[in-house]
């Protein structure tokens, strides 16, 4: 005999009749399941795409950070070079670079 007992969280069914085979067969349809499966497989849900991107996110962040650092460094190096060049006296540079035979040259 079926009886029921309840509390605030659960509804307890005692000796309830299970569904008949016929009732179960009404819902059983493998063909329908296959169609649903094919439809689900065809479209990639957004969260799965985001999930894949999410896995690569640390790598993407590291590569972008390195690129930004590299760009800043190149920019900084260019500016630094531009600032340094005019401060070098031109004549001095020429003198420094000019060939001066040594005092102790063997040809003398």
């Amino acid at each position, binding site marked *: 005999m079926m009886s029921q007992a309840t509390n605030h969280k*659960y*509804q*307890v069914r*005692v000796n*309830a009749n299970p569904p008949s085979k016929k009732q179960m067969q009404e*819902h*059983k349809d493998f063909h329908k*399941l296959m169609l649903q499966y094919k439809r689900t497989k065809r479209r990639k849900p957004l969260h799965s795409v985001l999930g894949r991107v999410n896995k690569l996110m640390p790598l993407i962040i590291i590569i972008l950070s390195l690129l930004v650092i590299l760009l800043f460094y190149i920019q900084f190096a260019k500016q630094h070079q531009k600032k340094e060049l005019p401060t070098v006296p031109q004549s001095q540079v020429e003198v420094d670079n000019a060939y001066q035979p040594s005092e102790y040259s063997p040809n003398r």
Partner: protein
Amino acid sequence: MQQSEKEIEEEWQIIKRAKKHPEAFGLLYEKYYEAIFLFVERRLGNTELAGDLTSQVFLKAMTQLEKYKFKGLPFSAWLYRVASNQVNEHYRKSKRRRVISLEDSHYDRLISDAEDLEELRDHDPGAMINALLGELSEAEVQLLELRFFEERPFKEVAFIMGITENNAKVRAFRIIDKLKKIQKKP
């Protein structure tokens, strides 16, 4: 239903085939449809809803079959795990009261697993289980159903719930201990 190692191995061959050719999943669908339907219906108490949810369970099983790893357990353990998660999700969303289906034989088994509880046989099973449920957490209720009502072995119970076998045994012992305490209450 206990399966031999040979049957489990044969089933694994079908699963491997189904991973490449989804049509092969039909064999597993035929084999387990009714068992999963009844498992879900006992937890929902509604045949129509159980039909819908069972379809969702098999759809999920099919789409996630690629991730399935053979651990020497019958495929049904994995299906019960998917079904269990689906039922939990349903209750989380609907916020309805959970249904617990119980038979007199389940209650007898629970009592025979515990020592010194023979006198509880004369009590009303519904009232006793109701009192016990008030003392249990959700995970313990799930274990009570799987171990004592569904008669699943501890290894499968542990797999379905995502805990270790030892942990499942300890929790089952605690449930019986709580039943003993209820019995001692005046």
